[in-house]
């Protein structure tokens, strides 16, 4: 695994430069010669897709800032100015707004891929934890970005979410006042959210750098979950992974373009086209879709502080996933019981998202509580026990063996 950089420039100028700053060698060993397990499926292209989406969000965001005004009296109209007057402003703004959703879709796929194939297990715990940190930063960025157009949902979303902190005992009120910079969500709040919304993506980019670094130390996991044993298990990153990632990215762009050009407001809220009015709350406040499962958990607990704790715990529990999963086998392919619980967890998360979008009344409350209970049950009880109860299927000796078995013996079978 180590020492795979064979980069040796022939050009004397490059040689001179490389001796002083070996950045080309670093790029070569990271993105050209880097050995990639040859059995990676398309779920593994979402890492590249996420890098692309981070780039799209940063570029479109910087451009939007050239035309946006972070002031409560002008923010709404400056966004409309972008939509109406700025050259291609509508395109860039819709790219940014829908790009955020695409980013979250991709990150959820990426997370569930890691969960299915056990990518968080030894020796990739730090890699996984850095991923959860990125996810948290994304949530903060997405939330503050949604405040910036200063429509009704922007304002009331900001009010509801910042009020979560008022649940903290003793200092809650002081904390919210500090967050707001006043006695309500107002101009100082908008200004600081704007500042932080601009800052956080660069922090995400920094943590992504660490995430990729950690990935390149441990090497990629793969669908079998069996570590790379020899060079016959891998192919060089370029051209093999590069071209596969490129195909995955373009397919994802097709999906993105569907929203961007034809249903650009589908994932937004109509109320956010009404300018913010601190005197009147919209009838039905809902966060952006990517927060809905957590919103459902928040509402499932009939206690203010308890709800907030449960919501944050739902994310914090992910940090401990590498140790909560006691099984030695990584991939769900060879874990017949875990595989079922994986699908149940996925359904529960989708169900929580659905409940989060519904008004908190009647059966929705009951279902929301059951699903919330199951979510924690999965991580805190089922997962630790499974490692002891489950009898895993026999593992292939190596990636090469698994590939040979798939292509040779089971020729007519459906490919994984």
């Amino acid at each position: 695994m180590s020492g795979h950089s064979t980069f040796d420039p022939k050009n004397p100028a490059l040689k001179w430069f490389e001796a002083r700053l070996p950045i080309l060698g670093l790029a070569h060993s990271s993105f050209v010669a880097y050995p990639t397990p040859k059995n990676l499926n398309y779920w593994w292209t979402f890492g590249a897709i996420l890098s692309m989406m981070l780039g799209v969000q940063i570029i479109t965001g910087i451009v939007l800032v050239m035309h946006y005004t972070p002031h409560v009296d002008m923010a709404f109209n400056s966004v409309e100015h972008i939509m109406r007057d700025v050259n291609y402003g509508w395109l860039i703004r819709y790219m940014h707004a829908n790009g955020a959703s695409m980013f979250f879709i991709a990150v959820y796929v990426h997370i569930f891929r890691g969960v299915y194939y056990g990518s968080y297990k030894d020796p990739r715990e730090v890699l996984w934890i850095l991923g959860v940190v990125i996810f948290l930063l994304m949530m903060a960025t997405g939330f503050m970005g949604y405040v910036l157009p200063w429509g009704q949902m922007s304002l009331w979303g900001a009010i509801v979410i910042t009020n979560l902190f008022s649940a903290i005992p003793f200092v809650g009120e002081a904390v919210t006042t500090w967050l707001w910079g006043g006695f309500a969500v107002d101009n100082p709040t908008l200004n600081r959210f704007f500042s932080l919304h601009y800052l956080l993506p660069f922090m995400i980019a920094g943590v992504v750098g660490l995430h990729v670094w950690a990935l390149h130390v441990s090497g990629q996991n793969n669908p079998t979950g069996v570590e790379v044993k020899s060079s016959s298990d891998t192919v060089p990153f370029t051209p093999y992974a590069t071209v596969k990632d490129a195909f995955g990215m373009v397919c994802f762009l097709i999906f993105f373009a569907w929203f961007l050009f034809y249903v650009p407001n589908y994932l937004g809220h109509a109320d956010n086209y009404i300018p913010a009015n601190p005197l009147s709350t919209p009838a039905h406040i809902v966060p952006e879709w990517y927060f809905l499962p957590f919103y459902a958990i928040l509402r499932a607990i009939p206690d203010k502080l308890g709800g907030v704790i449960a919501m944050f715990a739902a994310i914090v529990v992910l940090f401990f996933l590498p140790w909560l999963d006691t099984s030695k086998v990584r991939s769900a392919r060879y874990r017949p019981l875990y595989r079922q619980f994986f699908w149940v967890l996925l359904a529960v998360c989708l169900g929580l998202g659905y409940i989060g979008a519904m008004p908190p009344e009647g059966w929705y409350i009951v279902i929301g509580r059951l699903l919330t209970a199951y979510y924690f049950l999965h991580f805190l009880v089922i997962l630790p026990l499974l490692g002891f109860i489950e009898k895993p299927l026999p593992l292939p000796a190596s990636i090469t063996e698994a590939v040979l078995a798939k292509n040779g013996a089971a020729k007519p079978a459906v490919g994984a």
Partner: protein
Amino acid sequence: MATPSVVEPTRRDFLYIATGAVAAVGGAAAVWPFIAQMNPDASTLALASTDVNIGAIAEGSAITIKWRGKPVFIRHRTPKEIEDAKAVPMADLIDQDARNPNLTGDNTQATDAHRAAEGKENWIIMIGTCTHLGCVPIGQSGNFGGWFCPCHGSHYDTAGRIRQGPAPENLHIPPYQFTNDTTIRIG
């Protein structure tokens, strides 16, 4: 590996070149909106014209108004200023072009008649930014009794023509027209 057939590499090369070419075209096209967005937007372009009432400007005085974010000098010249400007021979001018988009003929020499308002030679209307590096010149000062730019010492005469200093061109004249005797529309 076995030697590839003769057809194989050409077909493969064509595929790679086609894919690369499409990627390059797509990349270039995707960059364009991000460049175009920095051009003046539709609302800026629409702010093309402004009406100015000049009825209250006495002879020998001037006003400065803002048009497209820039100062525009509107000066009611004295007969002496007009005489001085007319007396300058063409050969003495650094820039012999009138820099006046309102001229219709082929002759764009920087004569006083081509600098002043057509048929109203007591009015001169110019964009008040020095053609050197964009400072605003001071009126009725400098070596030629016209305008003087304090930033780098450019001297303009009473028709706003560059006579001395680093500026390369005469003060530019905006497009304008008299809508009646006391109102001009700039832009």
